[in-house]
């Protein structure tokens, strides 16, 4: 019995790692948001309530959940935050509204966001983002106002230009 443990552990590890993140953690959305927080500089403490020890992020400021405790809104417009967006935002699979306008965000729009099939509103206008604008998934529907006043090039022409072009 005991001797089977090492081999089991070794065998299971790649399988566990290959599973999508949500099945590993009950609070994957909270972890994703906390990973975002750790990227951002937040001089006016709008993210102060983002406490990673909580079961879910639904009580955090500027985060809205549905009745199943999935994050559906993130409202961080006009929040004086700076820093970059990261791939972890792609884990907010139920996200419908993502408002990050009028901040000092830099870097590119993470390609992982194109997997958010429920995303209805995406607003990063008035930031300092660069690179090209994605076209896949929900990004086929967002108006250009969502991107204005950045250093974005776009839209991305698949295969032609790397998305971080111009950064």
């Amino acid at each position, binding site marked *: 019995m005991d001797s089977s443990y090492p081999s089991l552990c070794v065998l299971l590890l790649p399988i566990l790692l290959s599973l999508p993140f949500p099945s590993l953690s009950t609070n994957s959305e909270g972890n994703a948001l906390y990973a975002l927080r750790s990227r951002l500089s937040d001089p*006016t403490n709008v993210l*102060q309530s983002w406490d990673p020890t909580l079961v879910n992020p639904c009580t955090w400021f500027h985060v809205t959940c549905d009745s199943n405790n999935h994050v559906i809104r993130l409202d961080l417009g*006009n929040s004086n935050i700076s820093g970059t967006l990261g791939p972890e935002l792609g884990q907010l699979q139920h996200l419908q509204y993502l*408002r990050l306008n009028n901040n000092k965000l830099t870097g590119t729009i993470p390609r992982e966001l194109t997997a958010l099939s429920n995303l209805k509103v995406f607003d990063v206008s008035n930031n300092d983002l660069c690179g090209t604008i994605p076209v896949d998934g929900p990004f086929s*529907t967002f108006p250009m106002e969502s991107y204005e006043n950045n250093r974005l090039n776009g839209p991305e022409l698949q*295969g032609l230009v790397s998305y971080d072009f111009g950064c």
Partner: protein
Amino acid sequence: MMMRFLKLFPSIMFLLLVYFSFALANSSSSLRQLCLSDENRALLQFRQLFLFDLNASRWCYRKYAKMVSWKEGTDCCRWDGIACDAITGHVIGLDLSCSLLHGTIYSHNCSLCHLSHLQSLNLAFNDFNNSRIPPCFGSFTSLIHLNLSYSNFSGEIPPQLSHLSKLVSLDISSFFLTPRCGRFFHNFSNDYNLHSASSLERLIHNFTQLRHLNLDEVSVNSIIPKSLMNLSALNYLSLWDCGLQNKIPADIFHLPNLQHLDLTFNPKLIGKLPEFFNDSSPLRLVSLAATNFYGEIPNAIAQLKSLEYLDLGSANFSGCIPESLGNNSKLSVLFLDNNHFGGEPPSSLWRIETLTGISLSLNTFEGQIPNNFSTHGVLSYLELFDNSFTGQFPHSIDNLAQLQYLDLSHNKLSGPLPSQVFGLSNLTHLDIGNNFLNGTIPSWPLTLPSLKELWLDGNQLTGSINQLHTSSKLQSISSSNNNLRGPIPTSIFNLRDLIALDLSSNNLSGIIKLDSFSKLRHLQYIFLSNNNLCGPIPTSIFNLRDLIELDLSSNNLSGIIKLDSYSKHRQLRYISLSNNNLCGPIPTSIFSLRELVQLDLSSNNLSGTMKLDSFSKLRSLNYLNLSHNSLTGFQLIPTSNMWPSLVFLDLNSNKLQGSLGSLPIPSETIMYYSVANNQLTGEISPCFCNKSNLEFLDLSNNNLKGAIPSCLSNSSILSVLNLQHNALDGAIPRMCSQANGISLETLDLSYNQLQGQLPRSLAHCKFLQLLNLGNNMLVDTFPTWLATLPKLQVLVLRHNRLHGSIGKPRSEVAFAKLNIIDISDNNFTGTLPSDYFKSWHSMTANDRNRSNWKFLTMSSRRFYSYTVTLIDKGLEMELVKILNTFKVVDLSNNNFQGEIPKSIGQLKALCALNFSNNHLTGSIPTELAKLKNLESLDLARNNLSGIIPPELASLTFLEVLDLSHNHLEGSIPRSRQFDTFPNTSYLGNPGLCGFPLSKPCGETEVTPQPSPKLDQTQNLESIIYDFDWKVVSIGYGCGMAVGVIMGNYIYNWKQEAIARFFRVRLGRHSKRLSTRRRGRK
């Protein structure tokens, strides 16, 4: 320790010297009876006073009972320790140092008083049991040497001693070899007093011949008398821990023959080093450690050409170290630690070839640690911790062949460690923790032949740990708080001398092999928490006989805890296995660990009932945390006082069944008791009332019935009482009704079936922060009488039978600290309490910056956060932690009438506002737009009319809006934020039109336009270019699958988009160019 040895050294030398002089005197005596009979008798009489006790001379290296040779009828001049004058036969020398003497000397009737010709008297290192020094010693006018050190004399030093004008050396010190702690040491030290400067002055003023003065540990408690400066022959002065005060005479450094000056540990002694020294100064040792000396080290320090030992540690010195200190220096020991020194240490310092020990720790030194240590060095002790040294680990340190102790921790060293060092073969202690070192751990720290302690903690070290030499002498390894990966190397388990292993907070993974720990017989401390270790806990861990502390928490360990033997782990005191995936029952044998103090098995999958038997009486158990498991109950022999020292018991979030009374009965010492979130039944026993230390009682979320024992109001220090979500009935106890029982901070009785009124005694709970009586059957009016509670932050009275109008506050300050008020779902009537809105100061502060945020916690135990359940953003949510910047007003589901007062605009800090389901009339006040932090606004199901104020479009944090079922009309304001609300936000208002409703606004209707500055991009959507995109694959260039077709996709373009399109194309070409150029290189 080293310093203390050096300090003791002169005393030992002195003892040897005296010993040899006696030996000479003895050999010169002839065979005839030389000893005078009265002196012989006196000595024999003196001998009667003592027993021989090894302990009395335990500080001596060489000790024996000299008095054994003192036999009646023999010549006393031939006895051990006696020296006689060869001509007169008088005893002139008595050396009883280290003679195991234990007994009391009667000071006024001392037989030694007959030895009036004594020239040398040495009684050091014995135990005279707090005897007084016989005053007759002062009549030994020929006395040259007097040594009474470390011999447990006490009381005043007799003033007669001052008559000894021929004294050359006087030592009455009682030097401590280990820290003074308690009676033990007090009993074995001399405890002399010299109650003022004048008594010290009177003692020494005749001693013009004095060369050696040691008054260590003598309570002088005054200034150093000026007359000390007259002792021009003085060469050795030691005043360690004498309680010296005030300013020291500066010329003490100029005593012409002084070689040894030790003023250590006189914290009230103030002084500065002089600006100049005599070139001929013979000073060899200067110790001013733990005094209040201040100022800089003068350049003139270089004039002390003989200086070998300089200890300025733990004083108030500042400034830089002068370059001159290292020039032509003979320094052997230099301690400058724990001062306010700064700057870069001079390079001359590192060239002192005689230096054996140096400490610059606990200062603000900066710059690089030099990397040119010479091979000639004799440095064995190098301590630089807690400074701001930068640069890399100086690899030339391996030139220091003698180095034994190296501490560079708590600096800003960076970069990788050198991959190899040659030498350091004598190093026993290496601490480079808490720097910014990165890279992997090279093999050398783990293979140094003499190394016993290794500290690499708190760096950014990565990679896996190399295999170690099995010949290693390592006793202690700490590499916690790094980024180490991979398994714990198996070779660690071959370190037979290992006592402590700390690899916590890394990314270590893999299985700990079953028999790993079987060879580590001496292991006492294992810290492997916060890693990714998996597999079962090897049983060999529990077979370590010397184990004291085991922390494997926060890993992925699984399987059952196997702990089968009873007697082996006599020492085990702290066990933490929390936050793993351990399963199965808790082994009964864990409760047979007699020394167990702390047991934390929380947050696992442990199940079953806990079988406790007579072995389970754990006298020392203080902390027991089994929370967040699947335990179903206790099976125990009902003995009270099973765990007599238990302070903390946390069983919350298990599946405990049966009655509350089936759990172990808490002892008197209990302070924290939580069995929340279980399935316990029965009533709350009054036995909780008489636990005088109980601060925290949480029985929430069970199935408890019956009344709350009214005697709980007697508990004097109860801070938290949480009984929510049970089936309790009856009245609320009269908490805070007794003058000495008002420490309550949280009272949460929500979700029960409590009846009656709110007890008026609550008005005395002046520390109350949270009061939650929601979801009961209370019948009362609004408790205006709680308005004066100075700390009340959360008030929840939701879903009761409260009634009447709320009225006006009795004073301007009412509920001033309130952050959350929820009185929804009652029968309140009248208008909204507009006057209260002005008095809720905590909600009116417009602190957008929210810089003073904190969680609402138990004031005495900050780890415990208060919780509350609220309806926010349309959902019922449990706030597991309550942030003081989270401000909520919920007055919904009542019978409030009239308009929404404009004073609502005062509550600028509000996050959520709910007035829904009342009978409110009139229009929505534009003042609501002042609530810039508002995330949730619910005004649904009222009779509100008029338009939706367009100013609301400026609430950019608004996430949930419900205005449904009113009589609102006109067009819905547009903004990027408003456009995200669904049509359900507006349902049941037939007069409303525009997005997102399907009803368009007629042309005749005036569209309210929000001011453009609210959202600059408001109307940009009107500029529409219909460019349509489709992406397909076609062959292109060197086979890239790329294609662009304009098609039917709906895109809203601005003109700029075209320009962007071309930039993209341009970009593509330039990229191709650059790749090609790269290719040519």
